[in-house]
């Protein structure tokens, strides 16, 4: 035993810093939620390359296949959709739909991992962060990641020549808002789950049907009237409509309504998340 202790203190080793060592003064403290968001940034360091490639390739492939190839057929037979070419119609719809999927994805498995697998949230709570910081930090990170993806997406759209108006600059916050309008309530829901099986149900019965029937690929006026009504209340419909109006430059008062709907959903989701995260973490 004695030799082990001596070995530990053997010369040539870096001594551990002394307790109470003075630190250089800091001017401003970093907000707690930003510290939590920084964690997800570290995580992203591992995956950013593949993530960027994916977020570039997916829109290129979709716009090429559906927008141009399928679109030329549609344009030939019905002179575009709502007065624009199909690819210009489709692109903002796909943008909103992609944001929905990213927002949902990032708020399901990573949130469950924060509680159960990686226990990230527990680690953050052992540091000076509070439950609300943990939640807000995660949502802030999702917003940051969405911004990266949306920026690339909009650049691809511009390259395809389907950005018709300077209003398109506002499609960036609009698309990010669409993603958060899903991420906030979904993370609140994920915090109530003990197994991940509910997530595939969520995908099958909510996310995929919404992706297909909320005006992403065709105007909801094509739907039977009862389905139109259903499509009209989905958040994705409002995200799609808002993004489309902005990239096509067809901005009207209705867009304020769409934005308000999405903001409201994000706010309700965040409020619910504060409750469910507290219930899960403060015991």
């Amino acid at each position, binding site marked *: *035993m004695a030799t*082990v*202790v001596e070995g*530990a*203190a053997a010369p040539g*080793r*870096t*001594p*551990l*810093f*002394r*307790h*109470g*060592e003075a*630190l*250089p003064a*800091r001017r401003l*403290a*970093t907000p*707690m939620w930003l*510290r*939590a968001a*920084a*964690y997800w940034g*570290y*995580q992203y*360091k*591992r995956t950013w390359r593949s993530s960027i490639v994916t977020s570039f390739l997916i829109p290129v492939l979709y716009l090429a296949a559906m927008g141009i190839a399928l679109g030329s057929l549609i344009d030939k037979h019905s002179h575009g959709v709502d007065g624009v070419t199909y690819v210009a119609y489709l692109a903002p719809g796909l943008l909103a739909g992609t944001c929905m999927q990213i927002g949902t994805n990032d708020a399901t498995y990573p949130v469950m991992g924060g509680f159960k697998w*990686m*226990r*990230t949230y*527990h*680690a*953050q*709570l*052992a*540091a*000076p*962060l*509070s439950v609300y910081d943990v939640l807000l930090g995660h949502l802030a990170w999702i917003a940051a990641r969405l911004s990266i993806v949306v920026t690339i997406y909009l650049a691809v759209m511009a390259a395809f020549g389907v950005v018709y108006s300077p209003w398109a600059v506002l499609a960036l916050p609009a698309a990010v808002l669409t993603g958060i309008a899903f991420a906030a309530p979904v993370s609140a829901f994920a915090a109530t789950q003990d197994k991940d099986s509910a997530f595939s149900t969520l995908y099958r019965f909510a996310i995929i049907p919404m992706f297909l029937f909320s005006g992403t690929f065709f105007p909801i006026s094509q739907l039977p009237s009862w389905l139109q009504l259903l499509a009209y209340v989905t958040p994705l419909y409002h995200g799609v409509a808002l993004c489309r109006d902005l990239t096509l430059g067809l901005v009207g008062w209705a867009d304020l309504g769409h934005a308000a709907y999405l903001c409201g959903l994000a706010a309700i989701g965040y409020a619910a998340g504060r409750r469910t995260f507290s219930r899960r973490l*403060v*015991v």
Partner: protein
Amino acid sequence: MVEAHGLVKRFGEFVAVDHVDFTIHKGESFGFLGPNGAGKTSTMRMISCISPLSGGTLRVLGLDPATNGPRIRARMGLVPQEDSLDTELTVLDNLMIYGRYFDLPRKVIRERAEQLMEFAQLRERAHSRVDPLSGGMKRRLTIARALISDPDLLILDEPTTGLDPQARHLLWDRLYRLKQDGVTLVITTHYMDEAEQLCDRLVVMDKGRFAAEGTPRQLIEAFSTKEVVELRFAPGQHEELAPSLADLAERQEVLPDRILLYTDDGDAALAEVARMGHVARSTLVRRSTLEDVFLRLTGRTLVD
């Protein structure tokens, strides 16, 4: 540093911590001993301001955990029982990100991370992911991580469970040095040697209450004798011989494999056994340890 009065923690009907009082002073190393389910971890979680109290009052670093949790935790290092490392990140990144939670300047985190990896003997693994590391390495990293903020109060919930003897002694040495630097340590353990090595003062917890409180020496004096004689006889003889040996000791314990005689003079008791003509297969006279105290107070039956 920590002051608790009538502390209670309930989970529904179950009372995990049942009206306990304790005070932990600056620079002291304070231990919570007890079998599994005794309420140690619940008490730790309340001290670390993670778990709200069900009753009583608690002050940590002079502040109220209910309203000042983050301020308290900024000066606290926490080693939870269950590791919460990011297994996909590298060893170094785990330390870096934890330093960021405390808003330390990057340069300081970097320097400390280097020293802490040395401390935890993980320097060679700095850039490897945490996932493939051994249990002991992960534990050492968790402890190193808790030290990155240079805490005034270090809370260790079963710090050495799963460590090999070398690592345990290394850690004890480091903890001892931290204590000399004025860091207050709060430790839960069910290793008695650890408690004897590290704790200035300790409490033995059982079923949510304190069964005893004091320095290791005081507890041995109060709840055991100076020495213990261990006698092993041929199988089956124990029950038969026990009554005749009972008078030789202050207290006797008959176990399936041996008889324990608690006495202040072990050699005298052993001589007496020989004089009575009993031939033991093996005998041992030893000092009383905390383990004797612990088993006396919390019983030999398994809790869970």
